[in-house]
């Protein structure tokens, strides 16, 4: 087992701080080194042009050799039992390097869905493969625009044999991440008794997968059509579990965005120190300096809230709207930094050859993925009102 196991397997934060302890800093160094080595921009550009969109060799190293795929999955299900804080560290480094691979779909989305919704037997059956990276899974969760309407595009009917847990799924789900490489589809479906989790095997002939054209080709999206597809019911998601699943995914994504945003700020400032116009580095022009200072402030605030949101998920203490607050803030700071990354480079920043647009597109896509900032702010206010009435 390559990773140092933390003493506290749930979380490792010292209360009320947004920063990392020594073990977490060590962990971050390992993760940073890995993605810096394994996900250089040249690899991102190569993979974004492929259909699969990932490098199985790197995935093997990531999941088996250093054990990231199961980092946040409890040990009893074959994972390493780290918490949301360490997952945040991983996501930040992936976001920084635009890592292309099935981590978010399989480990984060499908993994958390099983943890929150699957019954114990299916957790034991399915999570170990996800945790060691041998199973690539994804989550079918429609509609991402309004999660309170999740699962309504799919219809589940019991198979002829009423006694079994075998069902048939029908309907079309849009925006399914990495569906073409996933062998296991975890589907959220609205049933008469509420939301339920189903598993469908990717190689079923009763599903049709269509690749979608996307703005950010480092994140592959598919439409999946289910035609009375054979499905197994593996658990239920009550509304608290659904909310928590959404929280967990949103915070992981927020961390990914914080990593990307930090890279945009750092690389843009570095460029501005070197780029000369009018006999001065452009980084010496006051209007541009002030813009960078404003962006730094925005990033620092988003970072503080995002890390606190992980802490909240780890220990369950704090304001329960922190995940949505983090998603909204991280989305906006990433997008603003990406826009500035293009603008402050001038024409070169708008070229394909320059790398800035790769982060810009990831920022644009992440802005709305799992719900726009607007939606998350609205959700946050609803929680504040609910807590008032409670």
């Amino acid at each position: 087992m390559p990773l140092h196991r933390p003493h506290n397997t749930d979380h490792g934060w010292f209360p009320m701080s947004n920063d990392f302890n020594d073990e977490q800093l060590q962990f971050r160094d390992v993760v940073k080194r890995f993605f810096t080595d394994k996900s250089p921009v040249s690899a991102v550009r190569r993979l974004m042009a492929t259909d699969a969109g990932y490098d199985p060799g790197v995935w093997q190293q990531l999941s088996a050799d250093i054990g990231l795929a199961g980092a946040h999955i409890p040990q009893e299900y074959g994972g390493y039992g780290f918490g949301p804080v360490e997952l945040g560290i991983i996501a930040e480094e992936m976001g920084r390097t635009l890592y292309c691979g099935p981590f978010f779909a399989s480990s984060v989305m499908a993994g958390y869905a099983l943890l929150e919704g699957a019954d114990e037997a299916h957790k034991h059956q399915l999570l170990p493969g996800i945790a060691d990276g041998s199973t690539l899974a994804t989550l079918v969760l429609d509609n991402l625009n309004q999660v309170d309407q999740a699962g309504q595009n799919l219809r589940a009917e019991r198979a002829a044999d009423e006694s079994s847990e075998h069902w048939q799924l029908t309907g079309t789900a849009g925006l399914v991440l990495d569906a073409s490489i996933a062998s296991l589809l975890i589907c959220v479906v609205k049933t008469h008794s509420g939301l339920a989790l189903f598993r469908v095997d990717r190689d079923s002939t009763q599903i049709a997968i269509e690749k979608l054209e996307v703005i950010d080709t480092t994140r592959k999206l598919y439409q999946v059509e289910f035609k009375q597809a054979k499905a197994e019911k593996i658990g239920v998601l009550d509304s608290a579990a659904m909310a928590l699943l959404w929280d967990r995914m949103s915070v992981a994504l927020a961390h990914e965005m914080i990593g990307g945003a930090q890279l945009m700020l750092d690389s843009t400032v570095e460029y501005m120190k070197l780029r000369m116009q009018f006999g001065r580095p452009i980084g010496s022009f006051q209007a541009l300096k002030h813009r960078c200072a404003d962006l730094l402030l925005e990033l620092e605030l988003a970072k503080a809230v995002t890390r606190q949101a992980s802490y909240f998920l780890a220990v369950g203490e704090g304001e329960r709207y922190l995940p949505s607050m983090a998603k909204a803030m991280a989305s906006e700071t990433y997008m603003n930094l990406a826009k500035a990354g293009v603008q402050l480079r001038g024409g070169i920043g708008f070229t394909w050859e320059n790398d800035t647009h790769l982060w810009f597109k990831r920022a644009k896509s992440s802005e709305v993925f799992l719900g726009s900032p607007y939606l998350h702010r609205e959700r946050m206010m609803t929680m504040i009102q609910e807590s008032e009435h409670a």
Partner: protein
Amino acid sequence: MRDFAEIRVELNAWLDQHWSPDLSLVQWRDCLVDGGWAAPVWPSEFFGRDFSAEEDAVVAQEFARRGVVGAAQSGPRRLAAETILAHGSEDQKRRYLRPILTGEHAWCQLFSEPGSGSDLAGSTTRADLREGRWVINGQKVWTTSAHHADFGILLARTDWDVPKHQGLSYFLFNLRQPGVEVRPLRQMNGHASFNEVFMTDASVDPSDLLEGEGHGWRIAATTLSIERQGFSQTRPDGGLKGLSELRGRVYDEYRAELKIAQEPYTWYPQRAGRVDLALPRARQTGAITDPAIRQELARLLSMKMGADLAASSAAAQSRAGSNRVSPQGSIGKLAASVIARQAAHVHTLIAGTDAMLSGTESAEGGVIAEVLLSVPAISIAGGTDEIQKNIIAERVLDMPKEPRSDTGPFRNIARNATDPTN
């Protein structure tokens, strides 16, 4: 001043005699130049008739009315022509103006460089006089249609020991020679509307230097002011209504010419944010009932209304010959940036999660996605927002300039390490 009616009579008589849609484009334009109707505003010594702008408009009207193809207009060729007219020698005018009018020569503008974007006068493409010829080394960028161009108007440094603006010279540069490599420059939205032009020991005959050594910046200012007046803009129909329906060889060849000229500009409406699609999209999706989105939509429509009104007022003043300082150029450009960004924001709000998608299956057949990836260009191309704000502050608000760091001999000015000659 001539009577407009007289002009109409003379022109129509001439057209009755010479115009035929069955000619080749070049044949027809040769005839047009010989007849003096290709550029009537130009001086009579050089293919023109000394017409006023109003008289010229009458000619254009008649051409449009009769569906007659005019002289070649598209792309930067008119920038070259007007600059040569203003600054060229007799010999240069004789050699270059006619094939511009006939369309036989296409031109491009070789000003911007990787190392000098906002700071155009910091150009480091060098021109050295060796054995009686100017030898050019350097790289230009953001060159529209260079891969179709025969010639370029070229700004290059001939003296490194004088202040930056004084060491530049202006050349009429033949691109069809060894030592010139033109590469397409792909943008983040997938289009490749521009080129990079690499010049390695390319050469220019001394007779193709405009005015003389060191006058480059002054002449470039003429070119840029012509550009700002919109001379490089081409209307999609090339000035002829229903052009796509017209039959005849001259039309076929004209359509082909326009198509090449317009190809780089297909994404420009998206770059401006497609404000026109905001309300329809909000209605289609039902977002128009969302109070928070309504606020952002209202802001967008307000800014757009303000900018359109201000622009039409400025245009009216300009038509009325008002000499008041019009802040319109830079203000309009800055307004366009602000509006485009707000439009992208509104389109994202409306699209929600679907803003991840692109391609023909996505919103408006991919147009919305192209908006989201093209808007960043509007605050850069043709002078960044930052440069426009400098201009507005200094020229409209009369605020003082910053202290300069680029005075003295160019050789000593700090510049980009990647520049070819340091």
